[in-house]
């Protein structure tokens, strides 16, 4: 996958504090169309917070998030959450805990956004939903409720829900960390296929082996700054920074 020259997403100078806790201290990176970027780093380093800023779920204190062809959002303190909402037209989020709606069927879960918010024609949306559910092996579960699914199935529905938004960029926040080890594979496989199909994505993950396999670029964050970034093979295989090195070591060889 070869990133083009003008980036799909440009993130620059993101700052964010929760009270006295300065979580992001100036985060910059870009994602080109078709690129898979893995965001890694210790717990509490601000990965989730950064990802949420890309989707307008979190309002940064400073910095900007810009998509090719617009919108570009420049954050400022006291900014209205509304102003960041336009970012949601370009990217879609897959949460760690899937956050499916328990009172809606699988089909309703994945089609409620396109039908009620994007106001796309219902027939068309449902047809597309069924196609995508089949694509992740869940055609038989369209009318089931989320609670009756396994964790891996739930997460795959979460991915379909994001795809149904027809985003330019997929955002994943540790999509497999809440899963039984055996169920991790089925979700990673779907993500890998999406990457191979050319989807652009930002993937927060602790599965370093997976990142090495599917990511083009790896960004290592620690203490609210980007410590190191570069091609996956280099950052994970031969980290330049000692903090990166120790982190990668700890995850790949825990004992």
């Amino acid at each position, binding site marked *: 996958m070869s990133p083009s020259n003008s980036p799909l997403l440009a993130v620059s100078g993101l700052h964010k504090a929760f009270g006295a806790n300065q979580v992001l201290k100036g985060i910059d990176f870009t994602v080109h169309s078709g690129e898979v970027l893995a965001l890694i780093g210790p717990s509490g380093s601000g990965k989730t917070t950064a990802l949420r800023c890309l*989707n*307008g*779920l979190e309002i940064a204190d400073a910095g900007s998030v810009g998509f090719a062809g617009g919108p570009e959002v420049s954050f400022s303190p006291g900014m209205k959450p509304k102003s960041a*909402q336009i970012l*949601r*037209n370009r990217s*879609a*989020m897959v*949460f760690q*805990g899937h*956050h*499916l*709606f*328990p*009172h809606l069927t699988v089909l309703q879960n994945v089609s*409620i*956004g396109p039908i*009620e*918010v*994007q106001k796309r024609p219902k027939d068309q949306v449902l047809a597309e939903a069924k196609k995508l559910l089949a694509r992740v092996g869940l055609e038989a579960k369209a009318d089931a*409720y989320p*609670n009756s699914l396994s964790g891996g199935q739930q997460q795959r529905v979460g991915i379909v*829900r994001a795809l149904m*938004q027809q985003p330019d960029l997929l955002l994943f926040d540790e999509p497999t960390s809440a899963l039984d080890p055996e169920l991790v594979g089925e979700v990673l496989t779907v993500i890998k296929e999406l990457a191979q199909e050319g989807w652009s994505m930002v993937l927060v993950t602790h599965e370093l082996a997976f990142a090495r396999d599917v990511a083009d670029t790896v960004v290592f964050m620690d203490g609210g700054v980007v410590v190191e970034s570069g091609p996956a093979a280099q950052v994970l295989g031969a980290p330049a920074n000692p903090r990166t090195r120790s982190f990668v070591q700890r995850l790949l060889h825990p004992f």
Partner: protein
Amino acid sequence: MDPKWQLFLDSLGPLALGAITATIPLALISMALGLVIALLMALMRISKNRVVSSIARIYISIIRGTPLLVQLFVIFYGMPSVGLVIDPWPSAIIAFSLNIGGYAAEIIRAAILSVPQGQWEAGYTLGMSRTRTLYRLILPQATRVAVPPLSNSFISLVKDTSLASTILVTEMFRKAQEITASTYEFLLLYCEAAAIYWVICLVLSALQNSVEGRLEKYVAK
């Protein structure tokens, strides 16, 4: 036949009639209106606007902190002094609705807060507004959490309707008092009324269980 037993049987009809024509409708109507008020107050209470949420907080505090009897009296006997003469039934319904509004507001608020934050965010990330998220995603899930405490409130309300007798509404308890007045058997009559309340409550509890069962799927797991 034992005359007490005879009186018990004779009273059953009038009491049941009082329950059906007054106690139950009074409770049902007040509960319905009270839930509307409660939802409004719960939403005001979780609003980020300080003034709005303070108004709701004070309202809830007063309703919960003062006796229902006084609330009934203020509406029925007190309002005329500001030129508002309200008939007994409307007075009772207003008072009970406002009362349920205060108690249920806290229940609904807690239920809304019990829905995981992630559900809000999942709605937002689909492009939904706060309002749409609330109505389409949060409230249906909050319902399941709110049903048990709300039906407790409803059960209390059924018994509290007896206070309406103090403002001229002839409901079941008032019927019991009337019969007492001519037979002097107040203990028997009150216990009989209590038994009918109990039956109503048992029926309501059974209903609650079935509603809860049906809402089971609404809970995130």
